[in-house]
């Protein structure tokens, strides 16, 4: 083949070195083009190859891979959250593919009474819920959404502020804007995972008080961080800043973690949500029906807004 191409190229020019250079350039084109062409061909084909249980990935990161991956529960979540901005969530979920949840003392959801889907909706007040907080809210979105749908509430919006701390929520006007826009009847606030090592507790307490004031009369549940290590007092600050019956500790929860050993994994988020829901149902200052759903993976309601405190402090 090369000889025929070089014959065509050599017409009108007898320079030997030029022909060999041309041949080498064409070889380069073929060597670079061949593997990329194969990869694109595979990308656009409906075929999915795999080695053992691992699918051979395609160029398009969102291409469906039908070979069964080790993960059983992450695809539902990654399908809806797949942009690069959401890589923290994706990283968690991908990590989960390779981790099996360890045993925990937390009571699993399926051992608790479940609310049938046909339940009378007027047995409880329907809430418009706003979930806001740091990256941990990213994992709570789906289990919370399931609870909301099953119990006749509406998840109005989720504000996931990656890398955020109480300073971002206290000193910025982001919370005021969210409350004004979505007019929730109940707020769930989860923060603190990025403040395990902080020691400037006075400053944090000031921000926490500012945050509390922003909520005004709106009932809320302030959820303490699911500690991955012993904190330096941030949980205490949050507890003291919240109203009685409106704060729940999560620091001693034993829940399975993702690959980063900080954030809970998918199963861990579900268990944490069960714990939060149980608190709302039974111990909260303004309790309402929040029973475990009979089935899960409902279509996501409301709006999900993402921000990153590393790039956008908000104040």
């Amino acid at each position: 083949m090369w000889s025929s191409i070089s014959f065509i190229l050599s017409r009108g020019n007898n320079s030997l070195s030029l022909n060999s250079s041309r041949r080498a350039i064409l070889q380069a084109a073929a060597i670079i083009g061949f593997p990329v062409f194969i990869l694109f061909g595979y990308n656009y084909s409906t075929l999915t190859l795999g080695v053992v249980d691992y699918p051979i990935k395609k160029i398009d990161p969102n291409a469906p891979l039908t070979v069964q991956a080790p993960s059983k529960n992450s695809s539902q979540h990654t399908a809806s959250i797949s942009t690069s901005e959401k890589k923290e969530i994706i990283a968690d979920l991908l990590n989960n593919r390779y981790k099996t949840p360890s045993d925990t003392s937390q009571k699993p959801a399926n051992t608790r009474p479940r609310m049938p889907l046909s339940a009378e909706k007027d047995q409880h007040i329907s809430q418009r819920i706003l979930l806001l907080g740091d990256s941990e809210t990213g994992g709570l979105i789906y289990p919370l959404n399931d609870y909301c749908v099953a119990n006749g509430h509406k998840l109005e919006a989720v504000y996931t502020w990656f890398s955020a701390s109480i300073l971002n929520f206290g000193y910025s006007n982001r919370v005021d804007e969210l409350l004004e826009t979505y007019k929730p009847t109940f707020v769930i606030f989860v923060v603190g995972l990025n403040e395990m090592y902080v020691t400037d507790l006075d400053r944090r307490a000031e921000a926490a008080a500012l945050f509390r004031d922003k909520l005004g009369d709106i009932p809320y549940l302030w959820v303490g961080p699911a500690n991955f290590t012993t904190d330096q007092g941030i949980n205490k600050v949050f507890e003291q800043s919240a109203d009685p019956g409106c704060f729940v500790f999560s620091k001693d929860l034993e829940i399975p973690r993702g690959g980063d050993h900080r954030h809970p994994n998918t199963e861990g988020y579900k268990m944490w949500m069960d714990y939060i829901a149980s608190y709302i149902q039974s111990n909260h200052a303004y309790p309402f029906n929040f029973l475990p759903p009979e089935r899960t993976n409902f279509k996501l309601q409301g709006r999900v807004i993402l921000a990153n405190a590393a790039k956008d402090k908000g104040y």
Partner: protein
Amino acid sequence: MNQLLQDFHYFFYYSLKQPWFFTEYGFLLALALFLVGYAFFTPKSQWKLGYLIAFSLFFYYKSSGPFLLLFVGVIMCDYLLARWIHSLEGPKRKALLFFSIAYGLSFLLYFKYSNFVITNVNELFETRFTTKTLFLPIGISFYTFQSLSYLIDVYRKEIEPSKNLLEYGFYMTFFPHLVAGPIVRAKDFLPQIKNPLIFDQPLLKESLLRITTGLVKKLLIADFLGKYVDLIHDAPSGFSGLEHALAMYAYSFQIYFDFSGYSDIAIGIALILGYRMKENFFNPYTAENITVFWRKWHISLSLWLRDYIYIPLGGNRKGTVNMYLFLFLTMLIGGIWHGADWKFIFWGCAHGVLLILHKLFVKPREKAAKWSTVLGIILTFHAVGFLWIFFRATSFETAFESIQFIFTKTNPLDLVGFCYTRPEVISLLVIASGIVFAPWKMKQNLINRVLSLPLYLWPVILLVALQLILQFRDNSIEPFIYFQF
């Protein structure tokens, strides 16, 4: 099929969310097709230049979109200004040079530094000038320096101005160095246009090796380490001192593999096209002192700063104190060039101070003892690594916070837990250290072995490398770090 047609349609459009990098597989396919056409042109043909310029401009369009017009405008103005400078003598010649430099810098200053200046003026004088949302044209820092070097060289009569707009356009737009260097000088590059095209099998293998290693360095090593670095710097207060220290090492390797990987791909592609670009890195982390480090790191920028800032300021011709001052100012400008932020200014100043201290206290020796060379390498690597923290941190304050964590909250015993929780980070750090610190001879032997492989194996090698990259990457591809400068 619909998806294929849709993607083909988008192939010709610029997307802000998916700008073209060398690491885009779509680019590699386009490169292969482009090379088929390139082979048909005779070396000295103006058509060849036109074909290359057209592809380069398309590449820039895919990277920067509408800023292509600005780029073309700059090229045409520089071309005319250089010819005008050449035709003048005396003070008018000098005045026109200053005007050309001011004009050339104006775009860079506007896009890169105006918001920084406004923010600082507002803080200093309590004024309320509003900042604008500005998108930095990709590669503007590189092509501005390239056009300045051309104008200054013409002024100094070191080169003749290009008589042909196509030739000058080719020098400026040549896509391998277009968006992130290496910064190429006209006097090195323009003469190559007239050289006969020599590209044989050994050069082909060298270029393929360059491209493959560049892709692996960037996509497998740098991007993977980058994920860990992002995690730490996105929420610095949430991590221990040891994790910050390891993030420092990870970033040191990330930036090296990222930028040197880009340079490898650029040099490899240029080789296929028949042009030899100078090396941009030469084992920089094995430098035994900071002066040597700057001779091995981002060589094209270091030489540019030396030739167009340090020496014109006076270099070492105006006494020792002035030499130190010029050195400091040169590094300060180097810092500012990297970004409009106090952290970059601090980074440049700190390197300036290190260079001065090295010149002050360490006298050059003919041959140093082995232990002192090793100690020098360790110290230099750590000094450079600590200063990289300012480069990577999201702000000046968080950089100090990170350093404070390293010194006050590091417990070496945490390493055991870290190895357990993040084995992939530890593995990559070990692999990266092995590549960086392996003896040059060993690396050269390995390169020679790979180059001796038969050519028919190369498509398979490239296919395996590209598929491995797909297997390990996450859904997002990180742009090259130096695209932002």
